[in-house]
């Protein structure tokens, strides 16, 4: 075990851990109102470790979406993990397959950014990259799991009057706003927004997938043809 790399990871991630807990609490509290038990809600946080996607799943289940639509939406939300995976792969090619699986399992925006920066700075001979990832990711997974357990145990006691489902929408708002960085991303968001409202009545939440497709196409076209775009 490479203790110093593990500790370096723990140190780097520490400030980012507390904000994960309320995401877990919110997921747990809303999940138990959508057919999950505290055990199954906590299991999803542990096995999938995908906060935003889990909140989306709860939201979609609440609206009556089918398993297929939920899974398709999860693919779209988590599609960015493919970028992270492609970016880290050459930097950990020297590690065994179990190590690479361990690195892949909790990978998301935060630990990806920390790992990518560390792997630039430290040679594989100087520090074990797998252990760095363990140090960075373990507290994050623990925070989501503990938050979920707490939220799911409390969730049954919270009344509908608190409108907790809207907190999920607000989490999405907080993730959406910083992503709008100019014309094409703004148009992609507006395109998806308009279609999502118009197509809201399509069965089993298919409107969401239609809206995502339209918004993405609008964004790509805007980037190609708008002045100042890259095309």
């Amino acid at each position, binding site marked *: 075990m490479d203790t110093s790399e593990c500790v370096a990871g723990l140190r780097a991630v520490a400030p980012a851990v507390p904000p994960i807990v309320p995401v877990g609490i919110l997921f747990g509290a809303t999940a138990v109102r959508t057919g999950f038990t505290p055990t199954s809600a906590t299991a999803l946080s542990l096995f999938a470790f995908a906060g935003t996607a889990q909140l989306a799943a709860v939201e979609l289940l609440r609206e009556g979406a089918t398993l297929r639509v939920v*899974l398709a939406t999860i693919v779209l939300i988590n599609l960015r993990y493919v970028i992270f995976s492609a970016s880290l792969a050459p930097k950990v090619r020297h590690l065994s397959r179990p190590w690479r699986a361990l690195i892949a399992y909790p990978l998301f925006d935060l630990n990806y950014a920390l790992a990518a920066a560390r792997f630039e700075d430290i040679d594989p001979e100087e520090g074990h990259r797998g252990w760095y990832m363990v140090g960075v990711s373990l507290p994050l997974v623990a925070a989501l799991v503990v938050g979920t357990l707490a939220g799911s145990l409390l969730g049954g006691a919270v009344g509908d009057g608190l409108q907790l489902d809207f907190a999920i929408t607000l989490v999405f708002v907080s993730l959406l706003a910083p992503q709008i960085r100019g014309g094409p991303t703004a148009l992609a968001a507006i395109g998806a927004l308009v279609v999502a409202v118009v197509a809201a009545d399509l069965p089993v939440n298919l409107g969401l997938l239609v809206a995502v497709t339209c918004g993405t196409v609008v964004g790509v076209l805007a980037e190609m043809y708008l002045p100042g775009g890259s095309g």
Partner: protein
Amino acid sequence: MTTGQVANVWLLIVGVSLVTFGLRASFLLGIEGIDGLPPTLERVMPFVPTAVLAALVAPNVFLGGGAVAVGPGNARLVAGLLAFGVAWYTENMLATVGTGMAVLWLLLWV
């Protein structure tokens, strides 16, 4: 409590976990010898999360009682817009959710 149309929560857990791990492991375990993503995918990818989030938010904010409701009478729209402003300036999730919920409760209860 309703289970919606997904009768088996554990099937959902297995599905979500496998799909998510598959995306994370795609290059780390699976695809080897390819440097980076195909250019088409690289072009499309940046817009997908933006579109998904906008599409998830929109019906919960712009629809009130099943119809499009754009006006100060729609508490969720007012709360959502203010929260968007907070998110834009602070990029802070807790501040965003806190503001939005506080505004919603204020408008509904006062």
